[in-house]
């Protein structure tokens, strides 16, 4: 197997020396910019982009692209329940007494408790990925 790494040692491409075209002919590929490397048998080939090659050793390191889209997807999930927060905010803003505020809070927790917990977990996951909710 021939692999290619970026300036940080991250594996960005891999290929065989040849491939078979539609007519069954063996076509030799140009390996310029690649070098030969033998992966361990149990290596997760589908996620090769998440590994760095440092001193000949494979080291796991999440790529920026993966990190970015993970956060984007978490944000998308969070946005799907933003309307509950807005709804709760509107309800609180309409209260005139403390007792009414506490009553609204109690009702929302009873009705949307699981959603609110899920939103917190999503925020925690985003923070864990070193990004803060806006």
């Amino acid at each position, binding site marked *: 197997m021939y692999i290619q790494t970026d300036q940080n040692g991250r594996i960005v491409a891999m290929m065989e020396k040849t491939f078979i075209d539609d007519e069954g002919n063996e076509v030799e590929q140009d390996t310029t910019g690649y070098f030969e490397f033998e992966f361990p048998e149990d290596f997760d080939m589908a996620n090769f982009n998440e590994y760095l090659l440092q001193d000949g050793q494979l080291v796991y390191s999440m790529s920026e692209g993966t990190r970015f*889209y993970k956060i984007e*997807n978490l944000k998308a999930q969070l946005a*799907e329940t933003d309307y509950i927060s807005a709804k709760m905010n509107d309800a609180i803003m309409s209260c005139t007494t403390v007792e009414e505020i506490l009553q609204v809070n109690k009702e929302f927790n009873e009705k949307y408790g699981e959603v609110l917990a899920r939103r917190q977990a999503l925020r925690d996951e985003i923070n864990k990925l070193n990004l803060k909710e806006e």
Partner: protein
Amino acid sequence: MAIKASASITLTSYRDIESVTRYYKLQSSTASAPSAPTTNPPSGWTTTEPSYTSASTNTLYLCDLTVYSDGTFAYTPVSKSSSYEAAKEAWNKAQNAQDVAEEASKVATNYMNFDETDGLVVGNLTGDVLGNNVRIDNDSVDIRSGSNVLATFASDLIELGKNAVTSVIDLCKGVGQIKADKESSSDSIFNRLWIIAKKSLILRGQSVDISCTSQHNNPSQEYANSAFGSVSCTTGINEDLGTVSSQSSLSATCVENGDKAIIRAATNGSEGVGSGEIYLTTDGIYGEEGIYMNSSYFGVSTRDSHLTLSSRGIESTTSGYVRIETSDGSTTSAYTFDASKFSSGAPVYEQGTSLANKYAAKSHSHTAVNGVTPEWSGSVAYKDTGWIAAWNSNGTKIKALNKINLLAAVSANGHYGMAAPGNGAAASNDSAWIRTTSAGLLPYKSGGGSSSLGTSAWPFCNAWTQSTIANTFHRYTSSDFSSYVQILIPQKLWSGTMKVGGSATIKNLDKYYEFIFVTTENEQMIGIRTSTSSSFSAYSSADLGSSGGSWVYKASCGVSGTKLTLSNASKHKLLSSGTSHSGAQISIKEIWGVF
């Protein structure tokens, strides 16, 4: 302390030897050796040493008696007398020598005699008549019968069979003989000496000369100006090595005549008989082996009543040709066979076929083909304006080639070109179609890059193919359009797995204007590089169906020379509500290009 004196006396009993006496005992040597005596004096032993008696085979034993002063005695062990044994051995040798001398004296007297006249004669002298004997005198050793000398060996002369011309010298257990006989001719009787081998006789040496100075017993009858002799080889000799049969078949006579040596036929040694035959052969099969003439092999044989010449003496040889030259030796002169000298039935043959039937078409009639009647020029079946033809020996046409059946070559516009065969007097037809074989048309050699179909200055007008045209550009030129025409056949350029940041080096990358990126999810994105720009993007979308929304795929890349670099590759989910979206990086597994 006082010291007391002391003294001691030693008493010794001493025994002296009174006398020593030697005793002898003579007994048969076959008897066991006697034991030492035990009494004094001993019984059967004497004090006197017996003397040796001639021819005695006895053995003398001895031992010594010692008598002591106290009256006791002792004997030494018995031993053989060495002097008696020595005397016995000396007598035996002397007796043997005397016996031998007496026998030698008898032989010398009965079988050998020497005197000053005859020298030493060895033979049986005990009878009244001396039989076969050997005489050795001062000048020779003779083997004789009585006084007749049969053979003599002298310092410079060896004579065998000396006593009679009928003597036979048998050699090597009868394999060969030397003998003599007498032959009578009209004017003389002379002896002949025979050297006879039962099978073959070989004379071998760096040079072997067989010379005959004269076959006449009277030298005065020799021819005045010639040394005359003969070498005679006679067949038909009977097994008893004595009788020459009447079927003697060859006698070759060498006659020295001036500076020439001639081998000529003769029979049974008679000189110059013209009716004799000569065979030159290396064995009994005439002409089957090589014969040298002027340092070269040749063969002449007769078979099936025909004379055959061959280059090594063996018919149908492959080692050389038999050449017929003109009398002056020129190989460039024309040869002429005089037809009148050959049989009309089979004048000259080539590989079993009559040359007359093979080439001489005048003897056959032929049907005109395509209006052209075969014509012949000399012995070659060729007509300059149309025909090459051949007929087999029975006159059947085996091949008739005319220009209708031959692919022609026509020189025009500075090059030779293919042309259809002509018809009749027409030389060729370079306007008709020429089709390939069912397999097709190949370039000069395999591997590519060795031949061109047209050139930039000699382009084909049209090219039609039903399927693949690979690795090829077609250029169309006209007054209003001049560019490369893309043949829309995608070609896989790269295969592997590529993420953002990955790149690939692709030959002729700048020749491709349309690209297809295939993701690891088998989604195909199409991008067009509209000019020689350094970047382009490819897109694709997929409908999510009942779940609503769709995926949008995008890949962006940069191009530099033959290097294509993937700068972005992602997919994005678009929901119908438009309220949210998600995305992910994607991987490219194939890159295809279209000219």
